[in-house]
């Protein structure tokens, strides 16, 4: 008899596998990060840095810019989330996994966040400095990103699963997923603006956390169903 793999064992296996694959294909991880850095950096260059009103405006728009850039950067890597596994037949084997497809999907989402969301979170403070963001706002921005970027990966997984195997899937994913990400954008950027205007930012972060919890419960299951439909 073979030893049975536990659910946490499966989760760990899938995360380890996707991280290993990302390590062997580093270019994919780097493109997301470089895209994020470039887009965010274009704004200070375009708006102009200085002492006057431009600098103030830059600080004011910074949270929005960082969040929009994070949103767009996370769209870049969504197409790859399931397509490679779909093309080489691994996805068929995943659908036949006897433990739990939603748990397996959760593992893939987690690994996707670690390779596409987490680097953005780590890079955001450095980019915030370009915008003259005070440290208080910077901290809340990063906290918001920590809560919000996993949601982008989770909603993205649903979109990626639904558009699997379709021609022009990449663009379609963005069209499907971006509208769903609007609440995350509003509360994430809103939290930083609340700090800037001296208001309470905790409510925004709590709402972000609530969205993250709801997404963690629902999206792996929805993604699993979408994958089964896409496989027919």
């Amino acid at each position, binding site marked *: *008899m*073979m*030893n*049975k*793999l536990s659910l946490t*064992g*499966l989760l760990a*296996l899938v995360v380890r*596998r996707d991280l*290993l*694959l990302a390590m*062997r*294909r580093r270019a994919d991880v780097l493109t997301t990060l470089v895209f994020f850095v470039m887009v965010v950096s274009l704004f200070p260059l375009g708006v102009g840095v200085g002492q006057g009103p431009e600098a103030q405006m830059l600080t004011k728009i910074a949270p929005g810019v960082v969040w929009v850039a994070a949103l767009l950067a996370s769209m870049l890597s969504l197409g790859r989330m399931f397509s490679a596994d779909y*093309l*080489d*037949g*691994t996805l*068929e*084997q*995943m*659908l*036949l*996994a*006897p*433990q*739990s*497809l939603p748990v*397996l999907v959760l593992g893939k989402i987690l690994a996707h966040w670690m390779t596409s969301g987490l680097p953005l979170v780590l890079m955001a403070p450095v980019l915030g400095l370009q915008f003259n963001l005070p440290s208080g706002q910077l901290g809340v921005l990063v906290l918001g990103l920590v809560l919000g970027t996993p949601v982008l990966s989770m909603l993205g997984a649903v979109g990626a699963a639904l558009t699997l195997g379709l021609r022009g899937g990449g663009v379609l994913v963005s069209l499907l997923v971006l509208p769903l990400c609007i609440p995350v954008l509003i509360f994430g950027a809103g939290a930083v603006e609340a700090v800037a205007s001296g208001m309470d930012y905790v409510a925004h972060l709590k709402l972000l956390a609530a969205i993250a919890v709801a997404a963690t419960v629902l999206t792996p299951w929805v993604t699993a169903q979408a994958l089964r439909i896409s*496989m*027919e």
Partner: protein
Amino acid sequence: MLEVGNLGCVRGDHRLFAGLSFSLSPGELMQVQGPNGSGKTSLLRALCGFLMPEAGEIRWRGKSIRELGEQYFAELVYLGHHNAIKDELNALENLHINAGLAGAAVGDQQVLAALRRMGLRKKELLPVKVLSQGQRRRVALARLLLTDAPLWVLDEPLTALDVGAVDLIQELIGEHVAKGGMVIYTTHQPLQVAGVQTRTLALA
């Protein structure tokens, strides 16, 4: 064990087969025959639950596979046209992952033994992308040695294999059937398993 009743399958607006009924009991070997496009792969995919059949039912141990879901998957190995192995990983890593997805926690020794049996000694730690087509197929087939699922569903298992590997696969299938396992497969090459009567299912 596996019972298929009145199965019908439609792809697009083309009817592949209809009213297909058969059953497979422990120790039986069944070859699905038919020309290209007759629905062999679709039948096997329906048996795996990937395809929702247009009509009819597939039962495992008396229960519909739709109801059984993951319980059924635990007793099934499927080997499709695609090898389900990653070019960037080596054979050892690939098999660990494949066995894990199939629900088995296997040790390095077990995986290495399986790879050796498949004739891949000294190829265990090479990235799969440097292996030949036949060697990749051998890596995929090594999965059969790392499972104790009773039902094997094999879609063209012999593609790209040399004579030695074909003999090996026949041996594996023979052992599995002798243990009371079941195999349903498609092939365009003749497959002879010693001591076992092969049943055939012809799709027109």
